[in-house]
């Protein structure tokens, strides 16, 4: 079992979650974070709104799904396809991290392992 975690632009959440469902993902969850990476340049007004500054950190959303190992390629392709900017990929489109998960348990019926995800 693996955890696939994608840090994406908040406005792409709907696309990515649709793509996950299409890729056969059983479940996932997302929440907002503030991220900092190579992307510079969300210009925001500071103070009373007189001047703009470039925020080094920008709002991002993390969407996480736990899937069986063999789903890895498929899920990643789905996310990349849906998260990449219309214009064809640019800095700040986000990253995907994969990490191991040793077990999953469904609360309602106590089921374990692959069947639970």
């Amino acid at each position, binding site marked *: 079992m693996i955890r696939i975690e994608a840090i994406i632009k908040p406005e792409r959440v709907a696309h990515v979650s649709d793509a996950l469902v299409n890729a056969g993902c059983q479940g996932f969850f997302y929440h907002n974070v503030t991220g900092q990476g190579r992307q510079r340049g969300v210009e*925001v*007004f*500071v*103070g*009373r709104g*007189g*001047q703009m500054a470039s*925020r080094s950190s920008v709002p991002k959303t993390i969407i996480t799904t736990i899937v069986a190992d063999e789903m890895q390629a498929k899920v990643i392709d789905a996310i990349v396809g849906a998260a990449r900017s219309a214009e064809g990929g640019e800095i700040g489109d986000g990253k995907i991290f994969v990490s191991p998960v040793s077990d999953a348990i469904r609360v309602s019926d106590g089921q374990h392992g692959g069947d639970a995800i």
Partner: protein
Amino acid sequence: MDSGSIAWLLMASALVFLMTPGLAFFYGGLSRSRNVISTIMLSFMSIAVVSVVWVLWGYSLAFGEGNAYIGDLSLIGLKGIAPGDDMLFAVFQMMFAIITPALITGAIVERFKFTTYLVFLVIWITVVYAPIAHWVWAGNGWLLEMDALDFAGGTVVHINAAVAAVAAAILVGKRRSPGMEPANIPYVVIGASLLWFGWFGFNAGSGLAADSVAINAFLVTNTAAATAALTWGILSQVQNGKMSAAGVATGAVGGLVAITPAAGAVGAMGALGVGLGAGLLCYAAVLLRPKVAIDDSLDVFAVHGVGGIWGAIATGIFTVSAFTGGIEGLIEGDASQLGVQIVAVLATIAYSFIVTFVILKVLDVIPGMGLRVSEREEDQGLDISAHGERAFVGDGAD
């Protein structure tokens, strides 16, 4: 006063009252999120403290007979003021006394020690606000005798507060790590809206009657505010390609400040000029402020100082003698009123700055007082450290 004017003054007093909560939200929204409550409380407590001080001795010092420079203690506890016109005047004026020190607080948010601030409020109303109010509005005040025009308090309220804000910002020092973005822009907009709404009472009530002076003051107040907001918005759009909501709200406030002294002396076209000037000058001042070493955090001076000074001068320029019973402005050909206005401005600046500076210096060294919270409290945010509360609690368990 006839019942119509009483009705209007009661209402105008309530409107000016509402400006202070409006200011609380305006400033609160501009702070960072861990200081929203503390910023709101700096304004809100001014209502609680100044209302009491005003009734006890503030009104007497400001409007008691006294001499050309200060009232006396003859009206202490509003003694001898029967329900009627004088009491209504005392109530209306109380609302001005409440908002003035609240305006100062924009310069000291996120680091000023709250308990010291409460003491400062009491002293400042007594030794700074009351005398200046006396100069400008009391029958025997020396600026009134000079025919200085300050219809609704441009010098007494705005310049006074802005200069005190600079003194306070210098003494309390810079914030350790200012937030970048305002915490809550909708609060800024609702705050500015309540200020604008309340300002109709502030300006159109200052003629103390429901009459044509009030009608004109209402019109020019709205015109100047709208013009300044629009000016700021256009400047923001042209310079950055985006139009800041906080900026437009600030522009409106700048316009309101600038029209305050002039509301009884200019017409709609004059108000357009006053508003345009306010938009341009306050915008420039806000842009310049980061270049200055003083952390006047929410730009009190750039808006209330620059806007207020511009308003006082503009009054000297645009005054229409038909409104003022003979006093002419520069446009009508008389430069002398401009001179009088400048004297009033300079006197207010000098007195307010020096006395505020001294008060705070003294408070700083009194044991148990001090102007600034500890590093730890500042880092934690004053909402928790001074008020034991969080502005927004939304985690799962709550």
